[in-house]
Each structure stands twice: as C-alpha cells, then as structure tokens.
C-alpha cells in the first residue's frame, strides 16, 4: 500500500522557533527527500522535538517556512495537514479499542468503509488478533505498533516519529528498530524520526542530521558521519572519539602535520576542516591498535603513548582506558583475537593509520 500522494519532499526553510529569549530552533534549512528514513539526532533540548512539532503543526514557527511538496503548510491547521505523528508516549485513545484507534483518522476524514484498510494495517503491524482489545491491555511494544498503524493508515506525506522507542526496554527497542525499518521499506512513506539514541538513528535512518543548540551540526549517511565527523560535538555525540588539540605545523604532500604535546600527527587534508592554526585531532576508539610500549609500530602511523588505567573484558572485545602523557584518558576497543590482555599500569603505545584520523575546528567554548 504505497502512499499515493506521498512522493513529496519535506522542506524546512529558515525555520526559527523562539520561546521568549530561548531560541529552540535556529534558522534551520533542510530538505528531506520523499521516501527517505530521516533521523534528527541530538541531546535533549537541542530543538529536534520542537522541529518535529512545527512540522506536525503543534507548534507555530516564529519565522520561516515549511513546505510539503509544492505546498506551503507553515500556517495550515494541524488537523488539515497531511502529516501524521507517532507520539512519544503513543497517546492512544484509552476509551477506544485498537480497531477504532487505527480507524480514527479515516473516520475523521469521512471515509465510511474503514474495515478493509484498518485490518490491512493491523496485519502490517501484526496486531490483527488484538483488534478489539483496549490500549491498556496491550504491552508497550504492541501499543507502539498501534501508534504507528494509527498514523500510517492515513498515508501521510510524512510520518513523524517522536522518540517512538524511548519507553521500551533495550531488547524490545532493537526488535522495533528492525520492525520500523521493515514497515518503512514496505510502505515507502517518508519517516522523520527524532531520537537522542545515536545507535537507533544509525541503525534505522538513511540520513542522519545531528542537531545541537537549534542547529544542524552535520548531516549525511550514518557511515559517512561516523567515519568523518565534521565537528567535535558530532565526534563525541555520534559514537565516541579520542581527541587532542594541537596546531598545524606543516604539510607533507596530501597530508597536514599537527603537533600536540611534543607528538606529531598526520591527517589527510580532505579529512580536516582546517589547514592551519589550532586544530582538534580525533580518532575513533576501534581504529586504534594497542601494544606494549616499545613494540614495533607501522611506518607513518600516528601514535600516542600512555599507561593503562582500566581494562574491561567484554567477550568479543576488550575496552581499554589509557592515560596519555598530557593527562587525557583515551579509549581503545580491541578485538579479542589473542588471549594477551594488557593490565592496568602497563605502559602502552596506541597507533592508527592517518586515513582514520580527522581534523576539526576547535569549538569556541572549549
């Protein structure tokens, strides 16, 4: 049941929302292509939910425009917008059974024969047998699926999901991530998913936009953002990063050379946001190799020496924390391919390929 009129891009143009002095959404311009699974990722208070509520019509923008396809829906009443929401706490109608909850939108639009579409939708979310139950008689995961069905049945131009999995336990959340992805692929509707869970965003979305303080820090495919974060905030919020601040000391071919605390690091120019001055050098913990101090290190590798402060064995991998010479704690994820585990107190060298390094602007307040 592909959404017939669903092939519409959602466009936010210079969208601003201020609550008094507080600017929740700061001049946001964004195009979400039709049919994509788009995640707005950010910490609480970053403006992601406010953005979603403006698209839903539950919040009026201070300025800016919202376009769905060619039509400007900025000032359209929520009940007239062809946009539906899966609410954070589901907001299922407690006095109606599952069937009537799902049929609600169709009935409001004056559609008489609701049984067919409702049953098909309940089939899609695998809740057919529970049609006559009340929401309170369902588990959290089932309620979640009712909420999705209730919104999707209207074949909206865009389906908004506000932290839809937040109330579920970890195992169920993983299950529902796969489930939601499957549903999205099946119906082809544009999903805009708001979440603070970076793993959730990366698992499900084709495109992730990382938001901070009302602005988008970086946007792209999960793997793209993960492998090459463009701001320190993204480097730390989406996964974890080891970073050190230094200054550019020169160039060598296609690389720039950065010195920090007496060590020098090479970064490919195209992996750095700047070529001179103060710079933040970063690398993901799983890109690091760790070895006892004095071990042979491949040529041209970047390296940092340190002393292990913590080693936790998790089965598939061991997570090390090592104190660097300048007093930062670096993190290393090492696959357990050998039984040699380094112990706290061991002097080590951590090294990695320059191609895994990224260079970032120093954040203003740091």
């Amino acid at each position: 049941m592909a959404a017939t009129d669903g092939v519409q891009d959602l466009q936010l143009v210079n969208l601003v929302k201020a609550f008094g002095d507080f600017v929740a959404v700061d001049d946001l311009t964004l195009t979400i292509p039709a049919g994509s699974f788009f995640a707005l990722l950010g910490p609480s208070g970053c403006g992601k939910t406010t953005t979603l509520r403006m698209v839903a019509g539950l919040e009026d923008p201070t300025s800016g425009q919202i376009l769905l396809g060619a039509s400007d829906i900025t000032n359209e009443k929520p009940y007239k917008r062809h946009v539906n929401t899966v609410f954070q706490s589901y907001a299922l109608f407690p006095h109606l059974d599952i069937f009537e909850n799902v049929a609600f939108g169709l009935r409001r639009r004056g559609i008489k024969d609701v049984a067919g579409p409702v049953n098909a939708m309940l089939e899609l979310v695998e809740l057919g047998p529970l049609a006559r139950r009340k929401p309170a008689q369902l588990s959290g995961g089932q309620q979640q699926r009712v909420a999705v069905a209730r919104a999707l049945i209207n074949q909206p131009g865009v389906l908004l999901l506000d932290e839809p999995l937040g109330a579920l336990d970890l195992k169920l959340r993983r299950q529902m991530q796969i489930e939601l992805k499957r549903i999205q692929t099946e119906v082809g509707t544009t999903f805009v998913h708001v979440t603070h869970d970076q793993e959730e965003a990366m698992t499900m979305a084709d495109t992730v936009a990382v938001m901070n303080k009302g602005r988008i820090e970086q946007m792209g495919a999960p793997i793209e953002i993960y492998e090459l974060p463009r701001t320190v905030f993204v480097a730390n919020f989406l996964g974890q990063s080891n970073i050190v601040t230094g200054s550019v000391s020169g160039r060598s071919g296609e690389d720039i050379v950065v010195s920090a605390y007496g060590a020098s690091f090479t970064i490919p120019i195209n992996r750095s946001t700047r070529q001179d001055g103060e710079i933040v050098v970063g690398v993901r913990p799983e890109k690091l190799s760790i070895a006892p101090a004095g071990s042979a290190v491949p040529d041209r590798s970047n390296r940092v020496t340190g002393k292990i402060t913590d080693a936790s064995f998790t089965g598939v991998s061991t997570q090390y924390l090592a104190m660097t010479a300048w007093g930062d704690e670096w993190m290393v994820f090492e696959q357990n391919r050998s039984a040699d585990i380094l112990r706290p107190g061991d002097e080590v060298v951590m090294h990695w390929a320059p191609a895994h390094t990224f260079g970032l602007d120093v954040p203003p307040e740091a």
Partner: protein
Amino acid sequence: MPALAPTSGGSSGVVISGAAAQRRPRTAYLLLIPGLAWLAIFFVVPLISLFFTSLQAPTGKSGVYQPAFEVSNYLVAIQEYWPTFVKSFIYSGTATVLALIIAYPLAYFIAFRAGKWRALLLVLVVAPFFASFLLRTYAWRTILADEGFITSFLNALHLLPQGRILNTPIAVVLGLTYNFLPFMILPLYAALERIDPRLVEAAGDLYASPFTGFRKVIWPLSLPGVVAGTLLTFIPASGDYINATLLGAPSDRMVGNAIQTNFLQFRDYPIASALSFILMAIILAVVFVYIRRAGTEDLV
C-alpha cells in the same frame, strides 16, 4: 480494570498487596467494622424504622400512630403530592443541567489551562463551603430581591414576565444550581485532570478539528466525571427544601418541603415517611437507568 489484585474487602480503602491480603484477610474485615457499624446505626436502623412508620395507622389522637400495614399511605401520598414530585424533578433536573453547563467549561479551564492558578481556583470553588448553606441561600434573597440591582436591571429591559425573580421557580432553580455547583465542578475536574493533554494533540494530528476532538476524545473520557457530578447534584437537589422555602413562593414547594411540613407541622409521620420512601425509590430508579445508559462501567 483488568489488573485488580485479589484484595478482600476492597471497599475499605485500605491498600494491601495481594499476597499480604490473602495471608491476613481478617485485618481487612476488622478495618471495615467502624464504617459498617456507623452505617448500621445511623442509616440502616433509621431506614427500617422509617419504613415501619410509613405503614402506621392513625389512632385518632393527633400525632400518635400505631403499628399497622397501611399500604394506602403510599397511595394517599402519591395522589396528593404527585404534582409536587413532578415539580421537584423539573427543578432539580434543570438545576443539574445548568450546573453542568456552567461547571464543565470551568472545570476544563482549571484542568487544562489554569497553570499556576489551578490550586487557587480549586480553593475558590470550595470557598462557599466556609459559609453556612442557610446563610448563602439567604444572601440570594438579597441578590434577587425585587428592588435589587439584578431584578431592576432585567425589568428595565422588560425581560421578566412576572416582573420579579424572588419567589418564582427561577429563583429556586438558581438557588439549587448555585448551592450544588461545587459538587458538579469537583468530579468533573477530577475526571478532566486525568486526561492526557497529548490525546488532544493526537486527535488534532488525526484530522479531528478542535470541536470533533472534544466530542470524540475529551467528552467520552470525562463521562465518569459527568455522571458523578450530575448524580451528586441531582440527588441532593431533588430532596432539598431550603431553596424552595427561602427563594420560592408557596406554590414552588418541592417534595422536601412536603416531607418537612408533614413531619413538623401536620405531624403526619406516616405520610411524611411514605413521601421519603417514594422520593428515594424514584431517585434510585433514575440513577439506575442513568448509569446504565451512560455505560460508565465500560469507561473506567
């Protein structure tokens, strides 16, 4: 509700977890004793006594009656007072509807919009209880007096067919509405306050206009409060006699007045008791039908 723990004596208001209650069911019953004793002494015994009084026969001496099985007392009461019954229920029914119309928007405002003023507004709702019922009703005599501001104003506009409000059925209904309004507001507030405001957003998101959203979501979810509020207003208003005495003309008397006069003036205890029982029976029947219709058992 589906997930009720198997407590014994659940109406005692004591919360004991299922397991504990099963181990010591006796405690729950013991806790019921004071309440049950109170009910037995001050409700059941007088009720039975009233019932026997309603069947007593006259002895010839004024105010003295003998035990009998005089069912005709009921027929006499109905024959003589049925217009009063009809009038009573019209007055109390109108007052209940008026109270609902006034209370619902107010309770809605307090529950959803009042913000930091919520507590203050709730105190104001119950504030009239700080003054005596009788005193407040007397105050209405002044407010609605013939030479008073309201009556003069409405007369100037020629809006009053009888030229006055006091000593008319309007005054009685207004008094009943006013006096029982808090009993309507509070249960309505309690029901509305429990409704998640996000349900309203969800209804709007699902193509319901604000009015449809109210009709399909808020109203059905507030029905338990509507039922409780209307009953708490209708039942005492039906038996009230103060408002009719102080604000109405002699022709506006309600069943409560008839019972009072029979007890205290005519000292016709059997007729007064019969009237009380008839009133009680009618109210019970009305309530039973009403609750059945409203289908509250399905809503909680």
